[in-house]
């Protein structure tokens, strides 16, 4: 088992990839066979793909606050007039799709949480065709993301109620960035740099759900987390490094989460939730 990014990068040297290290570690920790572990992960991959397809087809949340935007983005992508390139915009569209399905109480794969489930799934499904990722490479993408996520979760946290949105979308974006780097042949250290840059970029992000619902601003924050993951992955693949070592960046995120007032930790008492419109929406839905 690896307890820090430093250990993760070091241990990965003995394996073909971070994903292979993660599968071997999981087998050791749980006693499950490697094929069984890979097949469990393949099921998660299928749930991710299904949730994206469902979201793009068009859904509406229980409250009506969100839904239909993945479909809009899909049409806009087809028009070919966007600032973002087709891969980045597809990642944004996919991330929105997953979180719209989540908001309507549909089936999703929490990665690392439900509120941030669009980031890793969204980026993976955007790059798998353009870069010809095989099914095994797609499963590896999730193991790489999971390996970095485990270290972040154990050294900081992944609950918005504990550490704000930086712990959810921030962690997800770091996981996706690391996996994107490995998917293009970047090494474990480059993946670690991408993760560190992502966390640093999203440091301090508050969790301020309007009416306490995982809808506003969560759906759009996932889109941002996906775009940010691509940005950090490209920076790391270009050879850029985080000046602050990855483990210190994670420790800083943990400290920021602990210093954050409870109004910004999923209580719906700060940020967008506390705006006049946010309050009005809460009153309309719950009557108080």
């Amino acid at each position, binding site marked *: *088992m690896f*307890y820090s990014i430093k250990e993760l990068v070091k241990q990965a040297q003995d394996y073909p990839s971070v994903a292979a290290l993660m599968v071997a*570690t*999981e087998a050791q*920790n*749980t006693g499950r066979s490697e094929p069984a*572990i890979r097949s*469990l*992960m393949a*099921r*998660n991959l299928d*749930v991710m793909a299904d949730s994206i397809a469902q979201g793009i087809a068009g859904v509406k949340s229980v409250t009506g606050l969100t839904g239909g935007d993945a479909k809009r983005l899909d049409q806009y992508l087809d028009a070919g007039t966007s600032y973002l390139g087709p891969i980045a915009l597809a990642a944004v569209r996919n991330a929105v799709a997953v979180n719209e*399905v*989540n*908001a*309507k*109480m*549909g*089936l*999703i*794969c*929490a*990665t*690392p*949480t*439900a*509120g941030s*489930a669009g980031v*890793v799934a969204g980026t993976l499904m955007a790059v798998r065709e353009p870069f010809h990722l095989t099914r095994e490479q797609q499963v590896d993408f*999730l*193991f790489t*993301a*999971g*390996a970095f*996520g*485990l270290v972040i*979760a*154990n050294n900081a*946290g*992944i*609950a*918005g*109620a*504990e550490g704000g949105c930086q*712990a959810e979308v921030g962690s997800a974006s770091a*996981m996706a960035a690391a996996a994107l780097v490995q998917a293009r042949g970047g090494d474990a250290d480059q993946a670690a740099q991408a993760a560190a840059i992502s966390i640093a970029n999203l440091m301090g992000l508050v969790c301020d*759900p309007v*009416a*306490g*619902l*995982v*809808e506003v601003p969560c759906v759009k924050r996932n889109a941002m987390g996906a775009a940010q993951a691509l940005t950090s992955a490209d920076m790391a693949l270009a050879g850029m490094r985080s000046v602050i070592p990855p483990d210190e960046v994670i420790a800083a995120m943990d400290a920021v989460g602990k210093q954050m007032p*409870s109004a910004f*930790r*999923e*209580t*719906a*008492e700060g940020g967008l939730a506390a705006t006049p419109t946010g309050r009005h929406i809460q009153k309309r*839905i*719950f009557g108080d």
Partner: protein
Amino acid sequence: MAKELRFNSVFDIIGPVMVGPSSSHTAGAARIGKVVREIFGDEPDRVDIYLYESFAKTYRGHGTDIALVGGLLGMGPDDARLPDSLKIAHERGIKVTFVPKSDKVDHPNTAKIALQKGARAMTVTGVSIGGGNIQISEINGFKLSLSMGTPTFITVHQDVPGMIARATDLMSENGVNIGTMTVTREAKGEKAIMIMECDERRPDLVAKLKALPNVDNATYFE
């Protein structure tokens, strides 16, 4: 010696597959409800659910109430019937109340569940620590820290001499190593609870534990 980790498996991070919208407030809550139901070992006829901090403030928006009750009915976080749990509980004649509390607790996503069936009563406190992962932090007023990552046996039994020896003998005979063990009781000679966190996955032993004299209920989860 391995460090104590909150998250041990890659599937704590990539997963669970679940009904939305919140892993901590919906999936975690369903898991808490399900584990509490397993510890209680029976369908309760009355449940009072005390919600703290983030759970107290946002439980309706996240379906925390729906998920806790779904779990108490035995549903998992990916059960499509989850959204209808309150109605199902009502149809089965289970009286459910929710009490949002303003007290400070150790973790922001905390639910204390008081269950009753006839004269039997139990309280269990569950904590949702993120990504759908949970811990049990209290049973009948006894503080403990139970992660769901390890194979765990829980018995509710009569507080009479020899109970611990019988249970540990059973584990020993079956080659099961006990990592940590907690034994607590309501009062001398009354109900006691024994929790054994083990290294081996042996759900088959729960029936043997249940068959021991003076054991009211035994459960296993991992």
